[in-house]
């Protein structure tokens, strides 16, 4: 497509052609898709977007859609265009008057990863790949397995062996090869970086990562469109590698640059679990030095000890005047319950991280009461029921007799 200029290194700016490469051959920095924003601005309008599909593909001009010898068949299960809902009851509990939730639990495989995978595998097919693969903390594996199945591609998903049961089952059901690694996500990642060099597979977060990463921009596009083509004052996002946060920030910049929204300042803030908080630690100690850690947290989907986009997440949060927080496991579980019991949204552990970090930040005076704040809720709670299973049994267990029920109710007083 005419809007695409190629790939460009985020570190040294060296350009390269659109292909299945993710690392700059000069400096080893990550490659990113480059667009011709003048052509893009001329091609997009609010009306055209509104007339598009109710999925992330309504923003296709902002995504890497390749032209090529293969038919442009999208790999599309309908990801994206998830609800943006006001959260007055959670807001009241936290002390915020204008809080919103971007509910990405409502995606085809129940997490925001469907956005990146839909984009990555559409490109992969265009580049002629027939096998999809990924290194995953669980959600990405679910999504790659689902999209590959629908696209008729073979799939290999690599995950840590100690994942939640639901994340293993919700990958396996689609029929991929599930490779469980006895180690952390960082061990999985290392293996996949090597496997990707040896096999001709499309590893969504390795060799097709530049395209994959672009999919997360659609969270930002949707937030703005759903607010009536206005940017929010503040977005809070969970951080694992940090890529999603970086891409939401990029999305807002692109909307301003193409004239779809008015320029206004926004802040972006990042949430991590204390058991794996290398980016938040670098933010708090002011060093800007993201030192790898060995993860130990209930929030397994965020357990990336060596976050590839950590530096860019730091840049985005500092530039926009945001904050980073991290919270302990018990706060994460309390955050999940607070979100569910106030707004009816059952998020996985990462959602608990986001809510609990927002709570911390409000208490620390880092968020204005009237600031229009959007919390990104990235995955569904049924994926991580183990986290809460120990503390959420039945309220009463009785036989089917009325008097027992009445007794149980009476015992409450």
């Amino acid at each position: 497509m005419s809007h695409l200029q190629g790939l460009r290194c985020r570190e040294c700016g060296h350009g390269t052609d659109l292909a299945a490469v993710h690392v700059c051959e000069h400096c080893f920095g990550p490659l990113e898709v480059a667009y011709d924003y003048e052509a893009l601005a001329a091609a997009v309008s609010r009306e055209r977007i509104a007339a598009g599909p109710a999925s992330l593909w309504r923003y296709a001009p902002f995504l890497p859609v390749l032209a090529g010898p293969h038919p442009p068949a999208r790999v599309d299960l309908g990801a994206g265009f998830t609800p943006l809902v006001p959260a007055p009851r959670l807001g009241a509990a936290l002390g915020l008057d204008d809080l919103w939730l971007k509910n990405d639990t409502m995606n085809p495989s129940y997490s925001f990863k469907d956005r990146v995978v839909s984009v990555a595998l559409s490109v992969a097919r265009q580049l002629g790949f027939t096998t999809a693969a990924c290194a995953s903390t669980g959600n990405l594996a679910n999504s790659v397995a689902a999209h590959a199945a629908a696209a008729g591609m073979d799939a290999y998903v690599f995950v840590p062996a100690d994942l939640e049961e639901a994340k293993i089952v919700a990958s396996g059901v689609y029929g991929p090869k599930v490779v469980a690694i006895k180690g952390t996500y960082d061990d999985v990642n290392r293996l996949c970086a090597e496997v990707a060099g040896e096999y001709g597979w499309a590893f969504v977060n390795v060799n097709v990562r530049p395209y994959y990463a672009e999919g997360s921009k659609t969270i930002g596009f949707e937030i703005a469109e759903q607010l009536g083509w206005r940017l929010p004052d503040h977005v809070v996002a969970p951080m694992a590698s940090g890529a999603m946060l970086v891409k939401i920030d990029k999305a807002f910049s692109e909307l301003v640059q193409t004239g779809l929204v008015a320029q206004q300042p926004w802040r972006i803030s990042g949430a991590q679990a204390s058991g794996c908080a290398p980016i938040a630690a670098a933010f708090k100690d002011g060093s800007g030095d993201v030192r790898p850690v060995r993860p130990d947290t209930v929030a397994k989907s965020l357990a990336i000890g060596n976050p590839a986009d950590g530096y860019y997440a730091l840049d985005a949060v500092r530039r926009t005047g945001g904050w980073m927080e991290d919270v302990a496991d018990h706060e994460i579980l309390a955050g999940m319950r607070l979100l569910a019991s106030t707004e009816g949204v059952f998020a996985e552990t990462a959602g608990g991280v986001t809510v609990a970090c927002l709570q911390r930040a409000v208490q620390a005076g880092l968020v204005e009461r009237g600031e229009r704040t959007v919390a990104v809720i990235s995955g569904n709670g049924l994926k991580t029921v183990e986290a809460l299973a120990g503390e959420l049994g039945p309220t009463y267990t009785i036989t089917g007799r009325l008097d027992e029920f009445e007794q149980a109710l009476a015992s409450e007083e």
Partner: protein
Amino acid sequence: MSATVRIPTPLRSATQGASTVEVEGATVGEVLKNLDAAYPGIGERLLDDQGQIRRFVNIFVDEEDVRFASGLDTRVPEGATVSIIPAVAGG
């Protein structure tokens, strides 16, 4: 002291396509120096202007990320494998 260095795909243009090479050196820093001597230009792609490992480069001695050890001063035992691995996005 001789180590096996595993070369990632993006660097194989410098090693004439070789995926592993044998290099002398008792520390990671020495191994990288000797690697650059054998394959000129490879060093500047791994180390920044200050001679430190670039922030998107991960180096392992056998199973250990050298940033958990002593960085460029990490010892490389006889027969060890040194792996150079680009950072990978999340999942």
